[in-house]
Every structure is written in structure tokens, then in C-alpha cells.
């Protein structure tokens, strides 16, 4: 964009402005650092799926089939995906906004409950015309949640009370309080077998959007993404919040009242969570039910960290989580893999996202191995084969443990075998690490693995006697690799000595 274009943009009004904004967005997307971020995220997901398939193997499920149905479930039911994403976008934004100001809002769950309770009360106690009613409910929900976040914000700013403790405690408070309010002893109980409020008036409900469960809350959530993005990047308040979050000393120096900003940030964060709760009550449940939230506030933390605390990242992460949920349901229903597998996959994705350097490490070392293969194919090949063997040892070690599950009774031999398998699996990981990073002292690991496999084989013969052959074959294989490694080492040493002479 050159200068003349810029001044044109200033002259002509909103249309140009939007175009500028889109151009800016395009620039951002093509930015190498964003691209890198994208590749990291993508690689994290792939790695997480690989490790997850390992765990599914241990647990005795078919990972291929599971992933196929995970994908089918996610892609065939986009409405469901977005439906699950709708509240997560808001709770994710809530946590992310607090993070932007250097605060860890671990109590989004409580703000969600308080917000939803307030919205529900507004929804069934007060009659208002259509359109106004839902807006009023959302507003009151956001305000209630906001207050629930504002209090810890104040305590943090003016009393130094750690927000992790206060928001968490207020979260439990909120869940118990709302639970009591709708219990048979509370004032808002509907008189049924279930602790809940009477249904919201029809005027207060969010109309459905697409499919059978997706409601207009989605639009609201996406507006919130725009709004938070605008707040963070285009307003003075957002600027000040980010400054406080990144460097409170510099913010103070720059005349920014960090206490005020902390309190406001927590309030806004709570408001977003409250909005998430209201939306769910008005769009899905139609009434406040005690303990209704399946941990949306907690998931908000994960969504925020996965989205790198940026509004658009949160949107993407929430949709990804929604996809996992929807796909996970199908996977569970069709393949029978427990729904907890989704939690495992999520956990692993987040772990890999936490440390992009793991991926760097894998890629860099792989690169050096492949590159040096051109110059001298022998040694790198050994490294490559050994690394792969390390992974194989890991998988086989873990897989062998499963063979012990089915054994009828406990014997010390079997326990010892299990222990050897565990050790060998750990060794497998270490072999991979050592050879992949081409450490010079790698050889002994192979020898140790060979010894362990031999022990495992012997134990198997004494004990259950099922898979001894595999163990012995692996023992021989590892031993040969160790020999090859030693041999090369010997050769290289003599070669060096020759050079010196």
C-alpha cells in the first residue's frame, strides 16, 4: 500500500476503510510469522494424532477406524461443530482477554453460571417484547458475569489478592449459589424433580439458525470475536490493557493506571463468560438447570491457550474443539472408542502447541540427518534406522503390556515382565531422542535395549510364554544395530588416526 492509496482511503468513507481492513488482514495472513504459527499448529495436531493412535493401540481400539469416523463426524455435521463452538468462542475470548492484561482468569466457569442465572431470571420473570427481551437477557447476563469477574479484578488491583485463587473460589461459590437458588429450598425452583428454573418465555429465546441445535448465539459469538479484536487492537483501552499485561512497569511509566485496567479487564472477561452462559441458556437449555455446564469455562482456558490468546486464534481453536467434540461423538457412537479419547487428543495437541520447539527439534535434526546422508550415507542411515527402531521398540513395548492385561492372575514373573516392558518402552523413547539428535554416546542404549529384550524374552518363556519370539527377534536386531554402530565408531576412529599419521 503506497502513500497515495492511503490518502485516498482517508478521503472516501467506509467502503474504502473496509477494503483497507481486508488488505491489512491479507497482509497479516501472508506474514511469515503467521504462516509459521499455522504450520506449528498443524504439525502439533498431526503429532498429537500420532501419539493418540499409540494410546488407542494400547487401549485396544482401532485408531484408523476411529479417525475416519472422527473426520466423518466433524465434516458431515458442521452445524453441530459450530453449535459446540458457540459458547467456547466466548469463554475462550474471556480467558484470552484476561491473559492479554496479564491475568489468569481460571474462574470463567463461575462467571458463566452467574451470567446464565441472571439471564434466566430476566428471561422468565420479566415480560418484554420480542428482540428487546433477548437483548435485555444477554445484557443482564453479561453484567452479572462481569461483576463476578470485576470483584477479583478489584481485589487483585488494590489488595494484591492472587486472581487464580479468588476467581477459582468465586467459581465454586457461583456454582453452589446458583445450585441453591434453583433447589427445592431456593426461591427460583420450578417445582419439578429437577433443580431448575421455570422455562424462559418464548420471547427471550434465541431463534434457531441452521440444523436442529445451532442457534443465533453463534452470530453473537462471532460478533464478539470482532469486538474483542477491535477492542484489543484499535482502542485506547485495549492498548493500555496489553501494555499492562506485557510490562506493568512500562505501563505505569507511560501514565497508564494499571489497577484500573486490571479491574476493567477482569470485568470484561467476566462479562464475556456471562454472555456465554446466557447464550447457552437462551439458545439451548431454555431454562437454568443446576450444574448445567459441562466445563465450558475450563475448556475456555484450553481454547484460549490453543488460540494463542488472539481473538481469531480463539475462533479457530473453538471450532477445532467443536469439531473434536462432534467427531468424537460419532467416533464413540460408531467405533465405541470412549469419549475420553477426545480429551486425550486435546491434551496432546495442547502439549505440542505449548512447545513449538519440539517440532523445530524434530525437523532440524531430521534435516541434518538427511543432509549428511548425501555426504556419507552410512552413519546417518544408522541414525535413521536406529531412531525408527527406537519408535518401534516404544510401540512394541507398550503393545506387549496389553498382552498381560488378559492374563488370569497375578504372578511375580508377569509383574517383572511388565516392568521390563515399561523400561524398554522408555528406552525406546530415549533411543529415538539420542539417535535423532546424533549424540555421540548413543551406542550403549542399543546394547541395553538388546539386553532388556532378551530378559523380556526369557521372562515370557518362564511366565506366560506368548510373545517370546518377538522379543528375541528384537533383541537380535538391536544387538546388530549396536554392533554396526560400534563398528562405524571403530572405523571412524581408525580413519581419523590415519589422517593424523
Amino acid at each position: 500500500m503506497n502513500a497515495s492509496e492511503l490518502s485516498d482511503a482517508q478521503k472516501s468513507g467506509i467502503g474504502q476503510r473496509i477494503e483497507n481492513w481486508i488488505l491489512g488482514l491479507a497482509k497479516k495472513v501472508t506474514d511469515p510469522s503467521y504462516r509459521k504459527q499455522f504450520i506449528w499448529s498443524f504439525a502439533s495436531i498431526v503429532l498429537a494424532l500420532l501419539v493418540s493412535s499409540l494410546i488407542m493401540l494400547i487401549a485396544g481400539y482401532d485408531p484408523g477406524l476411529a479417525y475416519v469416523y472422527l473426520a466423518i463426524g466433524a465434516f458431515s455435521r458442521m452445524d453441530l461443530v459450530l453449535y459446540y463452538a458457540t459458547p467456547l468462542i466466548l469463554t475462550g475470548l474471556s480467558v484470552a482477554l484476561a491473559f492479554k492484561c496479564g491475568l489468569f482468569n481460571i474462574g470463567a466457569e463461575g462467571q458463566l453460571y452467574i451470567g446464565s442465572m441472571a439471564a434466566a431470571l430476566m428471561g422468565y420473570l420479566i415480560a418484554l417484547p420480542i428482540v428487546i427481551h433477548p437483548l435485555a437477557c444477554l445484557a443482564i447476563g453479561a453484567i452479572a458475569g462481569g461483576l463476578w469477574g470485576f470483584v477479583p479484578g478489584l481485589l487483585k488491583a488494590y489488595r494484591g489478592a492472587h486472581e487464580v485463587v479468588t476467581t477459582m473460589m468465586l467459581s465454586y461459590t457461583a456454582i453452589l449459589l446458583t445450585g441453591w437458588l434453583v433447589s427445592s429450598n431456593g426461591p427460583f425452583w420450578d417445582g419439578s424433580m429437577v433443580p431448575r428454573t421455570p422455562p424462559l418465555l418464548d420471547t427471550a429465546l434465541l431463534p434457531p439458525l441452521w440444523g436442529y441445535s445451532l442457534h443465533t448465539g453463534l452470530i453473537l459469538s462471532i460478533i464478539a470475536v470482532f469486538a474483542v479484536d477491535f477492542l484489543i487492537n484499535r482502542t485506547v483501552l485495549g492498548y493500555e490493557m496489553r501494555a499492562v499485561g506485557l510490562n506493568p512497569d512500562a505501563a505505569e511509566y507511560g501514565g497508564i493506571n494499571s489497577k484500573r485496567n486490571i479491574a476493567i479487564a477482569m470485568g470484561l472477561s467476566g462479562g464475556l463468560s456471562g454472555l456465554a452462559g446466557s447464550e447457552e441458556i437462551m439458545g439451548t437449555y431454555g431454562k437454568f438447570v443446576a450444574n448445567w455446564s459441562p466445563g465450558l469455562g475450563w475448556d475456555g482456558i484450553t481454547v484460549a491457550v490453543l488460540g494463542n490468546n488472539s481473538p481469531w486464534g480463539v475462533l479457530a481453536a473453538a471450532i477445532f474443539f467443536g469439531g473434536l467434540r462432534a467427531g468424537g461423538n460419532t467416533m464413540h457412537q460408531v467405533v465405541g472408542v470412549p469419549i475420553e479419547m477426545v480429551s486425550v487428543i486435546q491434551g496432546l495437541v495442547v502439549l505440542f502447541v505449548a512447545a513449538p520447539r519440539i517440532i523445530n527439534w524434530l525437523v532440524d535434526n531430521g534435516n541434518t540427518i538427511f543432509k549428511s546422508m548425501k555426504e556419507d550415507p552410512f552413519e546417518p542411515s544408522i541414525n535413521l534406522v536406529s531412531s525408527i527402531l527406537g519408535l518401534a521398540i516404544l510401540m512394541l513395548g507398550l503393545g506387549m503390556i496389553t498382552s498381560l492385561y488378559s492374563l488370569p492372575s497375578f504372578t511375580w514373573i508377569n509383574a517383572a515382565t511388565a516392568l521390563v516392558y515399561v523400561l524398554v518402552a522408555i528406552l525406546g523413547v530415549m533411543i529415538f531422542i539420542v539417535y535423532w539428535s546424533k549424540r555421540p554416546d548413543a551406542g550403549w542404549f542399543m546394547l541395553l535395549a538388546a539386553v532388556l529384550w532378551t530378559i523380556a524374552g526369557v521372562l515370557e518363556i518362564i511366565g506366560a510364554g506368548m510373545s517370546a519370539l518377538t522379543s528375541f527377534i528384537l533383541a537380535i536386531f538391536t544387538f546388530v544395530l549396536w554392533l554396526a554402530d560400534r563398528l562405524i565408531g571403530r572405523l571412524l576412529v581408525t580413519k581419523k588416526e590415519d589422517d593424523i599419521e
Partner: protein
Amino acid sequence: MASKGMIAAIVIVIIGVAGAGAYLIMFNPFGPQPNPYTVAIVFATGGLGDKSFNDGCYNGAVEASQEFGIQFTYSEPAAITDYEGYIRGYAEHTQYIEPFDLIISVGFDQADALMEVAADFPDQKFAIVDMYIDPTNYSNVASLLFNEHEGSALVGAIAGLMTTTDSIGFVGGMDIPLIHKFAAGYVWGANYTNPGINYQVAYTGSWVDTAAGKSLADGMYSAGVDIIFAAAGRSGLGVFDSAKENNATSSYPLWVIGVDSPQMYLGCADPDNPEPPTVGLTSMLKRVDVAVHDIIEDVVEDTFSGGVNLFTLANGGLDYEINTDLLTLPTSVINAVEDLKAAIIAGTVTVPDSIYWS
């Protein structure tokens, strides 16, 4: 750096696509297949493993499947918002050619979701455990309901007779009306056989926190209670732990009354090889297994009809556990309870179904 990352990404994509492709060619998992299942069950949140409610449904389905040679499938939603997805998934019978004969929703909180789906699939047969759905609007839904307070009254009566300290306790999972039904019947029953008996009621506040259940029971036992009725899902298992431990040092016997399924065996030292003695006095049997078994039977024999299937003492949907292998109750107690049971069935006495004291 970016290009290096690019290469890595491409390699990973190729490997992934190749793997997936190879897998697809080998197994061909796509495309509709014949439906091996007759029945689909959507369990309540919390899922299997409570050893009472959900597990009872599961056992009923297992029995039915063995008896009628059918197969069933099930899912365990993690949240209330998942119900509709699962029920609808079965109703649409994705990836199968034939529909399911019956879809069972377990738990009162599935009602809303079930009604939505049932309206969209009027030809699909549904059943819901523990909730009433109006058959005039939803003729394809059978509601399986229980008079839990009646069963609770029976075990309350036993407790009233068996207590040596004139003091009994109730540990509930949550302070909610459904659990009040259990508590009400229990306290009423105890008062019926032992007027003026002392009682204590407490809630763990969680269905899964065994430690809370155990602590609470510890407190009740140390306060002089000798019989506790635990209606707290998995938290109730803590009550058994507590009874077993405290029984060793107590001068009078301590007892636990189980809930929903036969749970007396849980009071044995090793529940997997139950042998007397047990601290399980009896259990309030809410025969969800019978209910599920019967509704499957109805479907198999084509006698299914929508509407309320009420399970009461009279039709055996509720009962109390007698397990003479583990413990034999005195005949006088059995007689008294049977008398009460007859009276309730005959309608000469009425058991309250919500908290009437305090």
C-alpha cells in the same frame, strides 16, 4: 526457517494422506452397512460405573440381549448438550441401512432432547427412564417411571427395626427433589416401624466423590448412627468403605443400605468374591434393569406402546434386596416389611414422595 517448516509440513501431510489412503483401501469403512443392533441406549451423564442406576440399565439390556438374541449399542454423553446429538444420531441411523427398533434414553434430564427428536421421527420407538413424557403428543415414546419412595419406605422399615442405637442416616448425592423422594420414603418407613426414631440427612454435593461420601458416613457413624441409606451414585461407595472400617472398632454392628441395584455384596471384604460377613443390610431395588428388559421385550414381541410404564412395588419394579448367602434378616423383620409392602400395594397406607419433615 519457514521453508524448512514447509517441507516438514508437506512431508507430514504426505505421510498422513498416504496412511489414511492405504487404510481406506484396505478396510473400506465408508458406506452404509447392515445394522447389527436392535436397541440403542443413551446413558445419563456420569456414564457407566455408578454400580446402580446406569449400570442397572446396562444389565437389563445385557439380560434382554441374551434372552432374545439381539444386540444393543450405547453411548455415554459427557454433557447435557450431547444428548440430542446422540439420540438424533441413532434416530437417523447414520452409516446403517436399517433403523434401530428402540432407542432408550436414561435419566430425567434427557426429556427435552428426546422430545425434540421424537417429534422429528414419529416412526422411531423411544423409551425414557425416570421421566414422564406426555403420550398424547409423543405416542412413540414410552416413559418408564418408578415410585422410588415406596421402595425406600421398605428399606426404611428394615432400618427402623434393625437399628440398635435408634438412630439412622441418609446420604444423598445432591440436594435435589429426585433424591428427596428417596429420603422421604426412607425416613417415613423408619418412622412407620419405629416411631420417633432419630435420623440424619446429608448430601455429598457430588455423584463421583467417594472421599466425601466416606467422610460424611464417618461422621454419621461416630454420631451414633448405625444404619445409613446411601443414594449418592459413586459417592455412595464411600459409605460402604466407611462402614467396613468403622465396623471393626464399633461395639454395635454398623450397616449400609444400597440403592437401585443389589449392592449388599459391596459390603463384603472382597466384593469380587462376596462372602459373609457383609455390612450391606439390604438394598433398595429400583429395577431399572427390569424396566429396560421389559421394554426391550415389548419391542421384540411387538407389543410396544407409548405412554407411561409405571414401576411400583405391585409389579415388581421396586423391591428390597434379600441375599441369604450374605446375610439373613430375622423373620420378624421380613414379616413386618412384607406386611408394609402389602399395605402399600393395597393402598391402605400412602408413602410421601417429598420431604415432609422439618
